Every structure is written in structure tokens, then in C-alpha cells.
């Protein structure tokens, strides 16, 4: 029946009811009433999260679920139409918020089951007044075009086809005549509009609407004067415009309230009208949100259910808002408004999807394809439950199968987004939607960095001169605003995005030049012994294992076992995108020799450096490769290797009686964690911040 949204039951479930039915008062996809959780005033729900967490999908599903049952409007604030005024319209008479109100009202006007169109006489009058402010030098054709669209907002449903628009046409002619006449332009247009509203509709509702602007500050009880002031304020810009815009928002909400008031509408309409705002972090989102919240805080009630979605957490914008994870509101919100306007909002973080959801999505996307049994597990381990990542990887698998099914190959396989669209590598398609496009190149380079210093070094080496430390900080701030987690030791905190960025860096040049340069830069950035782990990490990324084996072997007898294990883990978290040649060098051929090394298959041909304990050397080498392989998010853990890891750690624990307990603990925890797809953050990893960058790259 419906394409189900996975893992969002807390929002859309019917029985027991999720947040949406309790908020809107209607069961999704059904025309059946549901009791409100907050009958007086619903919370302004704001979905938060980074890119790709499915905010847009949730809003689209909400619109789908309620379309035809209650008035629904979905406005994506990132759309082009909200960015700039149309070519021939002066900026003085146009604002993103005004445009958004028009778009929202147009969608809300649509008839629903049981009730007809909603008219917006108040909003229409206001928008005409605002538009009239920009008609100073306009030709009548342009005025007609602008005004007709606004006038259609007041068009009630008519069962005689063709009548719709007739009223609008008549009034448009009148307004055009007034605007191009000799009198004062704005007041003429406003007068014509108001007259038409009052004349054309004799019902009490329209009479009421035509005098609504009487209460505009300083209007002195004169609706026309109120509208002229509104138009003036709008043109003045700045705070005055905000004031005018807030009044326009109020007009929209008042029209909606009017549409739901009275005996007949109450017997016709179920639930609340639903307004959905996507990308509410960009204009006109914040203005609209602020206007609604402020009105509600001031006691000007409306009956609209708002669900907005914004990137990032919105802490600055809505400081007083209640914060909840989506699963927490599955049964009730525990939300009560405070005095502050922002307290009327409910910030709702979308969590990643569960392994079960991943399995369902992969199954749904690859319905016609036989998928390898481990694929959904691998996908979940790599993406960490990112819905967009799961869907795109599943689609990539659906298009590539039967064929290579390894994650690395699926990421690089060409993926057609649309039937006839151009095919781009899957990782490019993912980054296109998971990372800010305008900073993708910089992020690609800086993904390898660990902190501000290393990032600056990388920027100096690989990025244009204009991109200095300030730009690095700006980028870091942007990432935080985008809602990407901040992880110490990682410039890009989200492991999935980081993996994709690194893959992009790796594949940027045919000979992996940038990749090599980046890592070499970082190796050079960390010359000191105290930063050996960084140096070794990047050397390992370049395929050089000897130094790492040597360092670990030499420090094993003396170092603190905990620190030693942490170093091992961090070094082995180096990315591995390509097969390495016999020397371990990056090489374009296929095949992954890490398993062979870890299982001791290459021990015989390995030359052990002189003067070292050959057994320990080989054991450390096997251990390093095992951890490297098991921490690789692109490769599924091999049970055999896990077994070997356990064995090697056990053996090592025998050599260090002092650290026996820790090593033995790791020998049990790490293989189990790896097999389960959890990060191998074994003993003592938590709350140990002074050890600097923690390695969490082993996580799935």
C-alpha cells in the first residue's frame, strides 16, 4: 500500500499512536480522528539531525499520510524560489517569508475529504498590499500577473468549473486600474482589494476578514490604513519588515483559525492543518518559526500543527526548546510550554536506523535481486544506520548485483540516481547529499586531519593559499552547525562521512597523488616521538607496516598495556582502500592480503630484522594486520581472523604478567565486538581524554 518509512514508528505509528497522530489529530493515511495529546496548543515540532538522517523523507511521508485528509503544506526553504525575488520584482516588495506564506497558503487551500477549499482573505489582502509597494514603475501586465496569483488565495471552491478565477480576474482588473491610475498607488490598490473583498463576498466571514487589519498598530481602526502601514513597514526593511512579516504570518494563521471556527466547519473538518517546513535552518525558515513561536507565546493562539526539519541541533536559535530523541516521544512528549517563545518548540533528534531497519530497507530496495546474506549487516556497520547511506548503498547493490558485493566495490560502482540520469560513483552520490557541496573539496582533503593543527598543515599543502587557518575554523564551525558529531581526534566526526571523504581523497587522482601527499604531509606534521601513533597511522594508510610493527614490538615490553593497546588500535584504524603489493605498497590490483598476514600465511617469507625477538615480531605483525582488517568499515569481520586475534592477544598477555588482565580482557572483548560490528573500544577506553585522540575508527 504505502512505501513505509522504516524506523520512524515513534512518529507515524497508528496503534499505539505515534507523535504525528497525537499532534495532527488524525491517523496517518486514514480519515479517522485521534485524540490530541495537547488539545490547547501543540508543540512546534522541529526535527533535527545531520544530512541524510531522513528528515526530508519524514516530512514527505507526513505530507503523503495526511494529504486529502487535512490541509497540508510542505515548503522546502532551500528551494530556489525562496532565495531571490523573481527577475522583474523589486526586492523592496519581496521577501522569502512572504513567498513562503503564499506557497504554504496555496497548498493549504486544497479541498480535503469532507470539506472544501480554504480561503485566505486576510493573507491575500496583506500580500497584495506588500506587492503593491513594488509597483512604482510596473507595467499593468506584471501587476496582473503578480496580483492574480495572490488573489486566487481567496477563491473558494466552486462547483461550476470556470467560475474559479473569474472573481480574481475581475478584482485584478480593478487593482490594475487603480495601480496605474493617477491616485496614490499603494492606497489605490489596497482600496480596490478591500472593496472587492467586502463586496464580492457578503458573508459575515468575509466582512470580518475585510476589517481584520483595523487592529494593525496605529491603524486607528481603519483597515485600509492598517494595510498601508503594513506595506510601508515591509518596504522599510530591517526590523520594520520583520514586524510586517510577523503580521502576515498572523494573517495566515487567522485565516486558518477562521476556516476551523463555527459549527459547520467543526462538523466537517477533522484534526489540525499541518504545515511542514524542510531545511528550516535557512531563510525563510527561522523567520517563520520565530513569528509563530512569538505569537503563541503572546497568547495569539492558532490551530496549526507545525513540523519543521532543520540541519544541526538548533541550540542557538531555540535555546529554550525541549529536546527529545524520537523514540522518547513514541508514547508521550512530556512537553509543556514555558514563558520563552522558544520553549514552545520541541526539538526532536532523529536517531540512526537499527540493524533491523537496515535489513528491511535493503530487502525492500533489492526486492528483485538476490543479495549476499551479509550485505545488510555490512551496510549497517559502514553507515552506522544513516538512512540515506543505507538506501543508496542498497540501490548500488541492486544495480551492481549480481557482481561484486564488497562494500568498497559498491561504493565505487556507478550508480544511476534516476532511470535515465547520469551514472556517478556511489560514494560521490552519497557525498553529494551528505556533505555541503560548496566545501566538498576542502573537506575531502581535511578529512584526513585529526585536529586544527593537522588540518592547517593539510590546507597549506593541498589547498589554495586563500584557504587559511580561519577558513579551517569556519569549516569546523559549519560541520558542527550541520549537526555532524564532534569527535576528538577527527576533523570530520561522522565515521561514515569521513570514510567517504577519505575514499574520495584516495580516488581523486589516478595515481593517488593527493592521497599520498596528504598522508606524507601529516607524517611530516608529526615528527616527534610523542606523536608516533599519528605518524605510524598515516604510514599504515600508505601501506607501510614495518615502522608500525617495529614501534609496537619495541614498546610492548615497557609501555603501559592500556596505552599500548590504544596505540595499536589507533594505528590499525588507518584506511585501507586498495590492495597492497608485496611490499605493502598501495597498488591498483585487487586482493586484500591482510587476512593472509594475520593468519600467519606470510610468516615464512617475512624477513625479521636482526636483533629482535622473531616470535614477538611476527606475532605483533599478525596482530596489527588482524586489528587493521577487523577495524576496516569496508570489510566484514572474518571469524577466523577474530579467532586468531583472540589467540595472539592471549599469547601476549602471557608475556606481560603485569598487564595480563587488560590484555586478556582485550583478547575476549575485541573479537566479540568485531564480530558484532561494534567498535573495538575494549578495556579502559572511556573517559580517558588526556590520552588525546581516541581511536573510534574501529567502530562499524
Amino acid at each position: 500500500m504505502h512505501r513505509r518509512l522504516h524506523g520512524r514508528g515513534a512518529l507515524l505509528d497508528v496503534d499505539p499512536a505515534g507523535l504525528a497522530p497525537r499532534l495532527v489529530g488524525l491517523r496517518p493515511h486514514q480519515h479517522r480522528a485521534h485524540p490530541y495529546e495537547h488539545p490547547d496548543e501543540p508543540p512546534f515540532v522541529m526535527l533535527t539531525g545531520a544530512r541524510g538522517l531522513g528528515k526530508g523523507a519524514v516530512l514527505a511521508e507526513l505530507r503523503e499520510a495526511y494529504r486529502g485528509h487535512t490541509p497540508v503544506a510542505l515548503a522546502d526553504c532551500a528551494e530556489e524560489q525562496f532565495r531571490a525575488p523573481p527577475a522583474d520584482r523589486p526586492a523592496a516588495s519581496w521577501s522569502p517569508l512572504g513567498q513562503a506564506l503564499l506557497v504554504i497558503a496555496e497548498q493549504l487551500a486544497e479541498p480535503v475529504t469532507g470539506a472544501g477549499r480554504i480561503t485566505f482573505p486576510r493573507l491575500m489582502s496583506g500580500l497584495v498590499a506588500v506587492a503593491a509597494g513594488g509597483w512604482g514603475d510596473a507595467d499593468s501586465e506584471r501587476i496582473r500577473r503578480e496580483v492574480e496569483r495572490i488573489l486566487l488565495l481567496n477563491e473558494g471552491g466552486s462547483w461550476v468549473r470556470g467560475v474559479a478565477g473569474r472573481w480574481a480576474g475581475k478584482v485584478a482588473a480593478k487593482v490594475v486600474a487603480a495601480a496605474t491610475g493617477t491616485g496614490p498607488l499603494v492606497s489605490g490598490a489596497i482600496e480596490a482589494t478591500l472593496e472587492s473583498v467586502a463586496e464580492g463576498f457578503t458573508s459575515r466571514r468575509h466582512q470580518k476578514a475585510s476589517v481584520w487589519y483595523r487592529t494593525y498598530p496605529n491603524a486607528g481602526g481603519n483597515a485600509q490604513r492598517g494595510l498601508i502601514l503594513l506595506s510601508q513597514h515591509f518596504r522599510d526593511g530591517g526590523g520594520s519588515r520583520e514586524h510586517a512579516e510577523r503580521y502576515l504570518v498572523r494573517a495566515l494563521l487567522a485565516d486558518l483559525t477562521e476556516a476551523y471556527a463555527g459549527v459547520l466547519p467543526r462538523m466537517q473538518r477533522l484534526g489540525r492543518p499541518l504545515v511542514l517546513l524542510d531545511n528550516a535552518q535557512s531563510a525563510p525558515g527561522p523567520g517563520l518559526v520565530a513569528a509563530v513561536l512569538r505569537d503563541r507565546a503572546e497568547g495569539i493562539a492558532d490551530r496549526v500543527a507545525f513540523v519543521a526539519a532543520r540541519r544541526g541541533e538548533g541550540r542557538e536559535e531555540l535555546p529554550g526548546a525541549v529536546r527529545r530523541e524520537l523514540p522518547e516521544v513514541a508514547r508521550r512528549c512530556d512537553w509543556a510550554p514555558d514563558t520563552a517563545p522558544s520553549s514552545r518548540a520541541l526539538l526532536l533528534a532523529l536517531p540512526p536506523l537499527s540493524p533491523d531497519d537496515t535489513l528491511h530497507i535493503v530487502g525492500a530496495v533489492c526486492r528483485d535481486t538476490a543479495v549476499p546474506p551479509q550485505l545488510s549487516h555490512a551496510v549497517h556497520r559502514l553507515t552506522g544506520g544513516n538512512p540515506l547511506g543505507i538506501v543508496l548503498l542498497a540501490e548500488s547493490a541492486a544495480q551492481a548485483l549480481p557482481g561484486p558485493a564488497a562494500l568498497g566495490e559498491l561504493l565505487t560502482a556507478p550508480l544511476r540516481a534516476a532511470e535515465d540520469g547520469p551514472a556517478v560513483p556511489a560514494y560521490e552520490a552519497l557525498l553529494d547529499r551528505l556533505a555541503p557541496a560548496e566545501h566538498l573539496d576542502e573537506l575531502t582533503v581535511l578529512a584526513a586531519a585529526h585536529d586544527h593543527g593537522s588540518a592547517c598543515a593539510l590546507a597549506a599543502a593541498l589547498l589554495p593559499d586563500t584557504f587559511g587557518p580561519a577558513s579551517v575554523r569556519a569549516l569546523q564551525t559549519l560541520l558542527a552547525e550541520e549537526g555532524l558529531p564532534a569527535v576528538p581526534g577527527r576533523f570530520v566526526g561522522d565515521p561514515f562521512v569521513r570514510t567517504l571523504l577519505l575514499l574520495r581523497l584516495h580516488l581523486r587522482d589516478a595515481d593517488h597523488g593527493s592521497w599520498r601527499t596528504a598522508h606524507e604531509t601529516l607524517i611530516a606534521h608529526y615528527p616527534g616521538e610523542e606523536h608516533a601513533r599519528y605518524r605510524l597511522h598515516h604510514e599504515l594508510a600508505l601501506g607501510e607496516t614495518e615502522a608500525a610493527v617495529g614501534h609496537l614490538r619495541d614498546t610492548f615490553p615497557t609501555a603501559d598495556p592500556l596505552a599500548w593497546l590504544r596505540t595499536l588500535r589507533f594505528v590499525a584504524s588507518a584506511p585501507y582502500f586498495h590492495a597492497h603489493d608485496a611490499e605493502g605498497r598501495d597498488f591498483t590490483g585487487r586482493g586484500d592480503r591482510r587476512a593472509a598476514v594475520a593468519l600467519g600465511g606470510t610468516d615464512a617469507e617475512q624477513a625479521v630484522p636482526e636483533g629482535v625477538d622473531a616470535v614477538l615480531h611476527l606475532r605483533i605483525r599478525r596482530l596489527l594486520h588482524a586489528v587493521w582488517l577487523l577495524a576496516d568499515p569496508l570489510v566484514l569481520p572474518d571469524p577466523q581472523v577474530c579467532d586468531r586475534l583472540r589467540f595472539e592477544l592471549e599469547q601476549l598477555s602471557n608475556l606481560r604478567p603485569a598487564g595480563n588482565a587488560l590484555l586478556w580482557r582485550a583478547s575476549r572483548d575485541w573479537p566479540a565486538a568485531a564480530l558484532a560490528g561494534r567498535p573495538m573500544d575494549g578495556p579502559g577506553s572511556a573517559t580517558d581524554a588526556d590520552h588525546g585522540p581516541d581511536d573510534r575508527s574501529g567502530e562499524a
Partner: protein
Amino acid sequence: MARRGVGTWIREGVWEIPLRRYTALLVAAALVAGLVLGVRVLLHVDRSCGPGVARPEGSDECVGVATGPYDFGQSQLRDVVRAIGRENDRLAPGSYVTVAVMLPYTSTSATSLNDIRHQLQGAYLAQYQANHGSNGERPQIRLLLANPGATGAHWRGTAGQLTAMTAGADRLRAVVGIGQSTYANKQAVRELTRQGIPVIGSSITADDLANGQGGKDPYPGLARVAPTNTDEARALASFAKVGAGKALLVYDRPGDPYTRTLQQSFAALIKGSPYEPQPFTPPDDRSEEGTTANTFRQITHLVCDTSRETDTILFAGRHTQLRQFINALGGRGCQDRRFTLLTGDEASYLTHEKELDRGALRHNLSVRYTSLAHPDAWTKDPRPTGGSAADFAVLRQLLTDATREPTGPIGRAALDDGQLIIGYDAVRLAVHGIREAVPAGRTVPALTDVGLQWPQVKGSLRVNGASGWICLDVHGNPYDKAVPIVELTPEGGSRFVRIAWPEGKPPGRECLPPS
């Protein structure tokens, strides 16, 4: 949107939206009501025939009390029904009492219908006279037609209707008519009198549909215009001087009240007769032909086998069987022997009977019977007491007036079967009782008071009927009522022979029944 089931549509598209829910409920209620109504209309076909008249369950007969000018589908009644309707409509509300004429109007027998028409015409003329020619006496009389069905089978409903009409604006004060002395009619009279409604039998002659038989009054408030069968038989006997050895009795078995009383009366007359009475068994509805014609052919042989002195046949039966018997006698072997067939007033039905073999009357057979009344009675046999030509002349004058407006038209009328006269006299007796019962200063009598008047109808309070004086004894039976003896003529019609008297002589001038 996916295609949804009807159930979902009703649940979500109608039920959930209050406006549509209430509208739908209203529409559904209206539909159900309409459906129920429609089904009821379809199941209950309109059984009404006219105001007050309807077809009972399981019958196509229109029975009941017609409160409007309804002719029960009989075209020959139309004129008189209209005339009655006109007269009824003329009456101001509150000024009248109602008298119902109860006769089997839906009878299919042409003979019966003739009689019914004549009786009704007489009743109407009496109404007209009471309302127009009685010096403004009150109350005025409204006449209604009450039909218990052709066989009287639906008497119960009709009696119920009549009972209901005693109260309210109808003010029913008497039921007149009744007709044949059948079992159903007896039941009807019993019920009506039990309800206190005075009943005046017009052509009832049966002994057991009368009071005073064996000293009992089973029908309190019943009065009769016609003499009982016993009286008729006594009158016949006094006329014919029948002896035991000279007569043969032919009778209906098992018979109805009329034939049985006639049979008993005849049997008493010829007590000690050497001839065994000959029974015949007609169908239940005695207006049907049945198989009795064969029986009568056999009886004809017996008639011829009697000794030469036997010249009288006493017939206790209804008119259809009488006709069959006369036709059979017409073909008897002993045509040379002269016979006189004596029977009761049923023979008057044969006056205009087309199926009667009138040739039989030319072959030494004369059919004489007691008539209820005869137009020639007082002109051809004038008497000082018991009735007068002057009383009859009033009716004749009324009848002449009724051929044109404003009294008429009342349809084709005839006097010689006596039915018109007897109908007229019955209603006159009713009017008399009603008006005598009116208390001083009032215009309407109490229902029960009307019936109490009957014992007083004697002496100077007698009714000088067109058929003769009507003096009632304490049981409501006429005392020494003139019984015209009539003979059927071969030409069709009847010939008055002379008046006979149950007491053997006319009553005294004071006309007082002996105690």
C-alpha cells in the same frame, strides 16, 4: 491513493465527518421509514371501497357501513343511493339521528338485488317523508347502508361499526332491514340488540328471529314489521282451510330459521296426515342451484301418487328451491289433477323471476303465498280496520313524486313484490319509535329509549303502515297483521287474491293485542 473498500469509505468518508455522519443518519432514517412505509403499502393493498366500507381479510366483498353515497358496486342501487346521499347531505349536523338499513347489498342474485333495491327505495321514501312531510318534527333522519356481506358472513365487523356509531355525531338510533332469517343475521341481530341498538326487521318472518317465542325475549329491542311464519301459516290456514288428508308437506332439511318455522307451522296444520313430509337438501347458500332439481323431480312423482283428494302442497323452502319445484311440477305426470301450492312470503321473489317456467302455472297449478304486502290489498279488499287505502295512497303519492326532482330519481321502482312497501313501513316504524322516545325539550332520544317504545305501538299509537296497521305486542311482534294472499300469474307478476288474517279476522278498531 490505494483503492479502498466500501467499509473504509463509510467509516472514514462518512462516519468520521460529523456533518456527513448526521446527514447520512438522517437520510438512512428517512430511507428506512420510506422502506417500511412502502413495504406496508405493498403488503397492505388498499382494502377500502369507500368511506366506512372495506374488504375484510380474505374476501373481495365490500362490507361495512357506508357513510357516503356508496352503492356497493351495484349499478341498480345507484340512483336511490344518490337520493339518500343528497337527503343526508342536506341535514344540519346535530339535527339528525342515524338509521342504518342493513341488507346484503353485495348479493349476486338478481332477484335478491331487486328486493333490496325496492326495500331501499321504500326506506328512502320513509326518510324523505319523515324529514319533509311531518310538520317539522325532530329529529331528522339520516339513512346509512350497512352491508354484512351477501351471506351475512361479515356481520361481526358491521355490527361493530354500527355499535361505534351510536356514540358521537352519527347518533345511530335504529337498524332496519336484516332481510332473510339466516343464522348469520340472527347472530347479527343478537349482537346489535345486546349492544342496546333497536332493530326493526323488515322482511324477517322466521319465528326464531323474534321475541316472545316460548316466553323468552332473546332480542331485547327487536321489532318486526312482518308477521311471523306462524302467523303467516295461520293466516294461510284460515284462508285455505287445509285439512290433514288433503295436503303434502315438502320442506328444507336441515333448513334455516325461516324454513323451519314455516315447516313447523305447516306440520301443525296437517297433523295426522297420511303422507310423510318430503325433505330436500339445498346448498348452504340457498340462492345457488345445487342438485335439488333432481330431488324435486322425484317428489313430483310422489305428488302424483297421492290420493285424488289431495290438492294442496305445502312448501317450506326458499325461493330458488321453490322455483325449481314449480318448474318440476310443470312437468309432472298427473297434469289433469289440480294442485294449489301454498308457501310463505319467499314466493314473492318469483314475481319477476326469469327462470321460472310460467307454463307450469297454466297446467292446473296455482301458487299462492303470503305476501308481506301488496299494492292491491286495500283497493281490492277494503276493510274497516287493519289497514286502509288512504294509508297506502300516501306511499303511492311519494313514489310518484320520486320519479323526478327533488325527491328522485330513485331508479326503477315496483310495488307488487311488497318489498318497497315493507321497507317503507319498517323505517316509518323506526321514525315513530325514535320520535316517540324524544324526551320533552330535547331533540335526540337516548339509544335505549327507542327500543322501549315498541310495546306502546298499539291502539292510537299504532303505525298506520302502507301494508296495514302495525300494532306491536309486548315482544315487538306485529299483532294480527294483514297478510295478503297472492297468486303467481302465468304472465309474470302476481295477482292479489285477498287479505288473510292470522287471527282469522281483522283486528278491532283499538288494535290491542290480547294479553
